[in-house]
């Protein structure tokens, strides 16, 4: 057998297993990785309360008070309202002078996160056509009211 091999032939490397090895690596990466980057609703928190708080003078007519109760009921300036209606109201409210108008959220500590999230989502949606981010005063009722912070 060896006697018959010609001298000028280069012995070739057997590469048939390279495909298997790279397949193994591929499957490893497929299993351990998650394709989708996380998504989320971006908000900005106000900085922590300072010693000397500057009290902002805001006209009552420039504040839209939205309350979220423990059972997920929404009230706008004291009157019950549904989420789509609320979105319309916020859109109308923000149409005039959005930089100075403040949406005041008052959330019950027992309210569900999902309800709160949908409320935030509706406000962001209402402000979407405007260039200016919403100004939200976000309070969970038992705490002191503080107004400020960007969105």
């Amino acid at each position, binding site marked *: 057998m060896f006697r018959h091999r010609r001298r000028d032939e280069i012995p070739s490397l057997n590469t048939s297993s390279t495909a298997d090895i790279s397949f193994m690596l591929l499957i490893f990466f497929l299993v351990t990785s998650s394709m989708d*980057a996380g*998504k*989320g609703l971006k908000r900005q*928190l*106000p900085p922590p309360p300072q010693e000397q708080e500057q009290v902002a003078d805001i006209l009552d007519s420039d504040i839209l008070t939205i309350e979220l109760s423990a059972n997920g009921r929404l009230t706008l300036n004291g009157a019950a309202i549904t989420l789509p209606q609320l979105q319309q109201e916020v859109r109308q409210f923000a149409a005039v002078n959005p930089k100075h108008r403040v949406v005041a959220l008052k959330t019950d500590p027992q309210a569900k996160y999902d309800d709160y999230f949908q409320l935030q989502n509706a406000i962001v949606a209402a402000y979407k056509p405007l260039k200016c981010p919403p100004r939200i005063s976000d309070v969970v009722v038992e705490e002191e009211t503080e107004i400020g912070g960007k969105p």
Partner: protein
Amino acid sequence: MMRRRFRRPDHSLPELNMASLPDLIFTVLFFFMIVTHMRDVDKQVQYQIPAGTEVEKEQHKSAVVHIYIGLPLDGSTDDYCIQLNNQLATVGDIARFINEERKGMSAEDQERMTISIQADREVPMRVINEVKQALRQSYALNISYGATERQ
């Protein structure tokens, strides 16, 4: 040339050239390696994030810090727990956790650090608010409410 072709015995099968197969698979492998990110934490709380219409993709993966809030998987308590990295924690641990995460980041990632709150829909707002207040104290002001996209 022509003579050799005519002389080829009829019973031999032509071989398929497999040399480019590993290259092909390696290309797919590299594609997956680049577009995916590894899961670095094991879930210890159970949560179902809300769905919203205004969600955005989280940018700069290296600057995103996750906080998970939900019921513990091992069922040790019926209370909602906070998971930081790989362990269950309390609100008091958040400040230390944020500082540690911040230290491990590059200067520009520190600037754009975003806290992604992955909370269950049923979590009461009291818990969310405590987390948010703790984040304010640590000056981690960019937050994102983790959610899925809804049409």
